[in-house]
């Protein structure tokens, strides 16, 4: 098998240190082509640093990355025309109009002049800017800005799209539209690496890596990750969830207790013989009555379980 054709990104031992801080720690990464690959992790987990190393903006302290069959360290300039990059912060020109921004990007990528207008028209209609062609980009809403940023990142039809928290300032409906666009792009053969701290977005990825304080703590497709969490997930309906949470937190056999509305989500290691009895008896000992049942693991449970296993982020 030829790695160049199967994987858009292969990284081995990718490490970045800023002084004493290890932002990314020996990251191994295999991103298959034409798939949406997610980086899930809280702020400061090293998502942005990893993406910047992959596009050559940062030089790795250690390790190497091969992107689209080329070593990033040696061929960063050859890669630039083949990669689309969307920064976390809106990085187009706020004092240029939608159309001027797109035209600028088209020129910068030396998109042939005669094909420029059709390509810009196509993007304008596809990304819904027909009525805002002459509006200054700085006056667009958060969702519109992100759409424009995506439109300009894909203008030159890159093979690989790197998106750094593209939807962090976008409302749920616009996020859904945004993801619909990403799926279209992936179907057309574009490989997409997207970082996020939203669980629902992570679930949409074909494959994802969970990052925690610079370490990759899980890697796989979302359903496999959920199935192989290594924990039993219990839902607890107690009259007073606050008291119940206090009671359970001290139990050494219970890995994690999270309150969700009036219910509690409890994680117990799956080698425990009878997790329902464990929780019920603990609550009974504190004089609390509760309804306890086993439920399927969510991606959030995977996230909690894997970050705890790694020594965890201390938020």
């Amino acid at each position: 098998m030829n790695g160049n054709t199967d994987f858009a990104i292969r990284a081995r031992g990718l490490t970045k240190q800023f002084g004493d801080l290890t932002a990314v720690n020996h990251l191994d990464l295999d991103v298959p082509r034409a798939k949406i690959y997610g980086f899930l992790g809280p702020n400061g987990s090293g998502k942005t640093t990893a993406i910047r190393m992959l596009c050559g903006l940062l030089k790795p302290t250690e390790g190497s990355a091969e992107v689209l069959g080329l070593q990033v360290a040696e061929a960063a300039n050859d890669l630039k025309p083949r990669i689309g990059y969307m920064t976390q912060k809106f990085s187009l020109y706020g004092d240029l109009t939608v159309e001027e921004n797109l035209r600028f990007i088209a020129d910068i990528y030396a998109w042939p002049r005669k094909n420029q207008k059709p390509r810009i028209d196509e993007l304008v209609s596809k990304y819904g800017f027909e009525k805002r062609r002459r509006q200054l980009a700085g006056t667009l809403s958060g969702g519109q800005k992100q759409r424009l940023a995506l439109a300009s990142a894909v203008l030159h039809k890159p093979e690989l799209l790197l998106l750094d928290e593209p939807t962090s300032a976008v409302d749920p409906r616009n996020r859904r539209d945004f993801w619909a666009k990403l799926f279209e792009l992936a179907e057309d053969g574009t490989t997409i690496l997207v970082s996020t701290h939203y669980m629902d977005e992570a679930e949409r990825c074909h494959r994802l890596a969970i990052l925690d304080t610079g370490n990759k703590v899980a890697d796989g497709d979302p359903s496999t990750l959920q199935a192989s969490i290594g924990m039993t997930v219990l839902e607890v309906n107690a009259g007073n969830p606050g008291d119940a949470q206090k009671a359970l937190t001290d139990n050494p056999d219970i890995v994690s207790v999270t309150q969700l509305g009036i219910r509690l989500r409890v994680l117990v290691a799956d080698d425990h013989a009878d997790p329902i009895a464990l929780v019920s008896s603990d609550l009974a000992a504190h004089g609390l009555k509760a309804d306890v049942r086993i439920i399927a693991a969510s991606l959030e449970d995977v996230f909690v379980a894997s970050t705890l296993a790694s020594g965890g982020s201390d938020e």
Partner: protein
Amino acid sequence: MTPIRLVAIMRKELLQLKRDRISLGMIVGIPVMQLLLFGYAINMDVRNLKSAVSDQANTHMSRQFIADLGQTQVLNLTRSVASPEQLEDLLRTGKISVGIHIPSDFDRRVIDNRRTVAQLLIDGTDPTIVGVAGQLASMPVQFDSGANRQPSANTLEVRPFYNPERRTAVNVVPGLIGVILTLTMLMFTAVAIVREREHGNLELLINTPVSTTQLMVGKVVPYIVIGLVQLALIVAVGNLLFDVPVRGSLLGLYAGAAVFIAANLSLGLFLSTVARTQFQAMQLTFFMLLPSILLSGFVFPFDGMPKLAQYLGEILPITHFIRITRGIMLREASILELGNEVLMLLVFALVALTAAILRFSRRLD
């Protein structure tokens, strides 16, 4: 090298400038304001100094002497008082700058060659007035007494070339062109890269195939045009309001200015790669501006400066440019005769631009 990209950067700069009303206003505002300030307010011609006289001789000869002093137009004799003490009071309260005391034995002093004829009381707090008083003291005065008073050795006839009327504007405007262009051109480019960095645009730009050279040159070229527009404005206003001539070739002046502007823009870009914030960029601009005003020969005669200051001045592009403007505008020199100065500016521009390109990192670490 694809010219599309270079043109894209240039067009983007102009579009941004078009929407930036304040910067746009400064392109016109700075030259006009500076010109009016220097042309009108800062007047180094000493004329019409308020003065008073105390004539205790009150003879035909003393009255003639006072009239002669008035003729110079340096003094504006507004009043006459009885005693030198009153002159001192007027000086102290700032009502006059110069007092003339003519003693009662004035006529005898005129005949006696060894004595001064009268006394000049001067407000010494203003150095220019002191300088003028020195000239007045050696003023040759014809006395029609028939007495054969010898003219003293230092009463030389002063005959200034190129600016016979000794108008300040003629001296100042050619240098002022340099100061204005230095200020505005440095300011525009010093913030150029930093602004893109602060707004996050740079992270996007360095991820595109645009080269550093295209980025730098694309940012410089539009401002060369703007600088030349400023030059036209200064020359026109200077000519209309202050009669400042352009005796040499206007084309030569423009050619010299284009190189000078390029030098300043390149320096500004270099500063922009050094500064981390727009505020720092402004500070660096003013750090460069002060020596440009003081050491370039604009304010103080270059040859009169200490050697070290002269060496520093030679490094500054404005020093060479002021030699070019004064040469072309006032002495009718040709740009070829000033070739060395142009060459220095060219070298400066290339070195600064290269330094800026080398310093500019296409990475974030």
